[in-house]
């Protein structure tokens, strides 16, 4: 049927027909929410009544002055620092496993596997892990560190470290597999040339591996940072945000859907969106300049 039309007409039809649905979906579910969110953030809407009033910057003022909303940013710092540790561990294992190692596939699989698990399963696994007299306490007792066991999820001073640890366990495999892929794509001849020059493993890492995977490390770092700021699954499933483990996203969700303060929650989401976009743009600029 289409064959009878000229390529010029066909071209028009196909451009229109093939972009209609994707573009409509993109605008309805990616851009319209952002636009609406900005609009709601200046109102006192509760999310269900027919009318609402514009309140100017009132919601933003609440976020930055009421400590209840502001302190949750501090919690992000734990995940933020955790994401650096995560990168380091991933980079270490990727480097080690790119060399000749026995049982390479076994180690590769085991280190990566946690990333494939369901967020709820991971939350429960670590609830079990951190319970009083649970796995961690038992392990510590068996190596003689019994005196140092803690209320891992009960003590507000360490709860976020425990949760950031669970988060590291979950996402490390993802970074690891990407770094490993990037390192394996470095040509063998480069290593051979370096070996002739008498480079040891550290020299290789410092002067060959690191420079060639730098941009991918940076990219992963940015993903990890925005991931840290928007941490939700693990703390929500494990503690529901209690004992000082409340994150910004948990706070936003409860403000919107539990306390029905949609205007305020929108303002919080706008702040979060701005932080993520600024961090991302800074990072992109940074990478571009180096190229």
């Amino acid at each position, binding site marked *: 049927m289409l064959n009878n039309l000229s390529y010029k007409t066909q071209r028009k039809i196909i*451009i229109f027909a*093939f972009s209609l649905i994707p573009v409509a*979906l*993109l605008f309805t579910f990616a851009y319209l929410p952002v636009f609406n969110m900005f609009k709601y953030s200046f109102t006192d809407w509760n999310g269900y009544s027919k009318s609402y009033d514009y309140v100017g910057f009132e919601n933003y003022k609440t976020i930055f002055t009421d400590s209840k909303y502001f302190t949750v940013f501090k919690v992000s710092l734990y995940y933020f620092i955790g994401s650096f540790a995560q990168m380091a561990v991933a980079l270490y294992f990727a480097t080690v496993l790119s060399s000749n190692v026995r049982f390479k596939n076994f180690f590769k*699989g085991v280190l990566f596997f946690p990333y494939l698990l*369901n*967020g709820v399963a991971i939350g429960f*696994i670590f609830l079990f892990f951190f319970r009083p007299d649970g*796995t961690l306490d038992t392990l510590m007792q068996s190596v003689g560190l019994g005196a140092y066991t803690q209320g891992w999820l009960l003590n507000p001073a360490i709860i976020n470290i425990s949760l950031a640890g669970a988060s590291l366990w979950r996402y490390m495999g993802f970074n690891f597999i990407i770094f490993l892929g990037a390192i394996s794509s470095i040509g063998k001849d480069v290593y051979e040339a370096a070996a002739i020059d008498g480079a040891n493993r550290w020299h290789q890492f410092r002067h060959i591996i690191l420079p060639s995977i730098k941009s991918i490390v940076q990219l*992963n770092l940015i993903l990890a940072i925005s991931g840290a700021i928007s941490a939700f699954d693990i703390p929500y499933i494990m503690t529901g945000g209690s004992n000082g483990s409340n994150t910004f996203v948990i706070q936003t969700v409860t403000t919107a859907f539990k306390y029905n303060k949609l205007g305020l929650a929108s303002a919080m989401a706008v702040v979060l969106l701005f932080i993520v976009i600024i961090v991302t743009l800074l990072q992109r600029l940074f990478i571009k300049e180096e190229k």
Partner: protein
Amino acid sequence: MYKLKYGTAAVFKYATLLLGAFAALVPIAVVFFASFKTNKEYGTSSPLTLPDNWLNFANYSKAFVNGNMLLGFGNTIFIVVVSIVGATIIGAMIAFVLNRFRFRGRQLMMGAFLLATLIPSVTTQVATFRIIDFFHLVDTRFAPILLYLGTDIIAVYIFMQFLDSISDSLDESAMLDGASYFTIFWRIILPLLAPAIVTVVIVKGVNIYNDFYTPFLYMPSEDLQVLSTALFKFKGPYGSQWEVICAGIMITIIPILLIFLSLQKYIYNGFAQGSVK
């Protein structure tokens, strides 16, 4: 002397690898042990002790039946399949148009798809919920499906990148034979995209299978539960029966373990490619 130094480095290397493997496996292994213990046994034994009876499947049947896991599997599979098929077709269509044609508004459209990746969808849920509500789709399977299609645009990128490597000359020779653009897309481009489609299936499949937030927020009904929300419901009623929760955890892990073991190579490649934007 040199030999000794090499020895310590190797020892260190294997020690850290074993430690890493231990840290990755122990949290799962203890859950596996507990899932075979009876309530009394669970209460009296340490988490690291092996179960008395490896064939005690009572917890599994309890978790599977009472947690209505079959329904969870059914809903999850439905949502994963429909979303992936949809994302593949939609993504391939838009990538084809953006890659093969130069038209007014192309740059703008490409920019719009690029910029959308910067928006973390977790931040916009507050407003997205109202839109889904407007279409009367809250508490239907189409809420997550539409969101997976509309907001996660990774498929578009993977396809656009891959299309760069498929030469235009193929299209041109087909045009000499009188093939329509649609035929070219359907008969030539789509089959050649197969490796990229595998990547999309894996990256999106894992993300959707593991997602908790979207189904939790948009499908509160009991009969729409997916695996993750079904498992989440164990938290309250089985709070004192960890051996049942552990069986529930294992039920969600086993399918993914089997898929991982059989498709390892594709999964590694999928993630390695899917991440290079």
